[in-house]
């Protein structure tokens, strides 16, 4: 079971603001879903699946790619061909 303050902490970790009005609904839906997830406790102990996997590697060589202009075309703000981000601290 989680309570409203747990959901608030999770929302903070996920960088999503949830209004006080929505918190109650989110919390009860969360508990309903988590209760359903408890069925996983019935899973017999076993291996996690990693069947016959093979890494796909390639040489690190430069190939044709997006131009700087194309790559930054969707950014909100750019400066000298770079993306400008808001201050973090």
């Amino acid at each position, binding site marked *: 079971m*989680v309570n409203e303050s747990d*959901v608030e902490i*999770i*929302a*903070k*970790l*996920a*960088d*999503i*603001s*949830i*209004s006080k009005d*929505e918190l109650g609904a*989110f919390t009860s*839906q*969360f508990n*309903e*879903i988590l209760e*359903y*997830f408890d*069925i*996983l*406790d*019935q*899973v*017999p*102990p*076993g*291996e*996690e*699946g990693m*069947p016959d996997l093979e890494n*796909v590697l*390639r040489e690190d060589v430069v190939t044709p790619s*997006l131009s700087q202009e*194309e*790559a930054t*075309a*969707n*950014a*909100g*703000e750019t400066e000298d061909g770079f*993306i400008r*981000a*808001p*201050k*973090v*601290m």
Partner: protein
Amino acid sequence: MEGGYIFDEKDRHNAFISTLDLALFETNGGPLEGIAVAVKDNISTAGMPTTCASRILEGYVPPYDAHVVTLLRQAGAAIVGKTNMDEFGMGTTTENSAFGPTTNPVDPGRVPGGSSGGSAAAVASGMVDMALGSDTGGSIRCPAAFCGVVGLKPTFGRVSRYGLIAYSNSLEQIGPLGKTVTDVNTLMSVIAGPDARDSTTYDRPYDHTPDPDVKGLRIAVPEEFFGEGVDPAVSAKVQNAIATLEGLGAETIECSIPSMTYALAAYYVTCTSEASSNLARFDGVRYGPEVPAVRSWHDEFKTYRGERFGKEVQRRILLGTFALSAGYYGKYYAKAQVARENVRRDFIRVLKDTDVIAGPTMPSIAFHLGEKSDPLSMYLADILTVPANLAGVPAISVPCGTVDRMPVGLQIIGPHFADEKVMDVAYAFEQEVA
């Protein structure tokens, strides 16, 4: 450029998010020359907005084409528009769209299924001949079943996902929808094959002519596909369809897939965990509407994601964040991966002695708009489609009649890389009932 393709722009079902007035296509004698193809709006199209039906990608115009879009263009297809969907593919009804719900062409009071509901509705209403969707836990097969069209989720790794805006990488595949098995087969032959830009693809191109001969075919019929929660009228329709295949010389073998008990929980833990990581990239810096830079980044970013992501997307990001958090990882994510491996082994075991598995695609007919307001009850509708994604095997949905005048889908699931086989069985059934 000749406008020889068929595209009726009267979009009565809100199937499209954006359309092109005149789709350009190459007159090159390709297999899709001049054929109108719709593309789900989570597949990147250079120069054409791609929104994932989310306000967080408002105004985003991809600078490159997804690999499947490049292949469509090379085949001469006319890409006429981008179809509506549940935001980022998260939903079973296409109601979770920032552009409003798509309605079901068979009954506009009902949902088309999801999340590729726009693609299915565009095909079902005759607006286009074929469409691309993506299937993370049933998102091609569910709307195909609800709208009465054909849809294939290919084997994991058979179709490149380069340019598909990721939601849950270990589960999702791009695949074809069409009115007939032949159309789906044709579109599959265009999009399948290896791609150096998607390291999960295999060198398994698809070049196949459907063969309707099912004499001696061994069809496994798992009891779980006809169990609790499945509408008995839907079960009866699908049993009839299987009997039709028996009439054509196939034999049926009853079986059990015990891991189905926890498959749905394993699916939702896995996909929400992957979503919480994938959707962290939507921070308003590199694409999408700009984040104002007045307060600190985290404050701005939180408000922005709170306002621009829909509720279901927020719910899944939060669930995934929780499932991966310290102290809960072992209880949820680790167990889900063991459960997933058990599902995969169950499918391999059953398909060792049989050729395909058959059952309903969905446990019910299409819901009424607004009927599934509770998230968990919506999730439960995916119970029969998610196992194929967890196991990575191919699965097709083909119409097999109606219940209350609404279409029902027969689902045929095959072993890894037997996309051709599930196509053959669907074709045999379609030809017999046509």
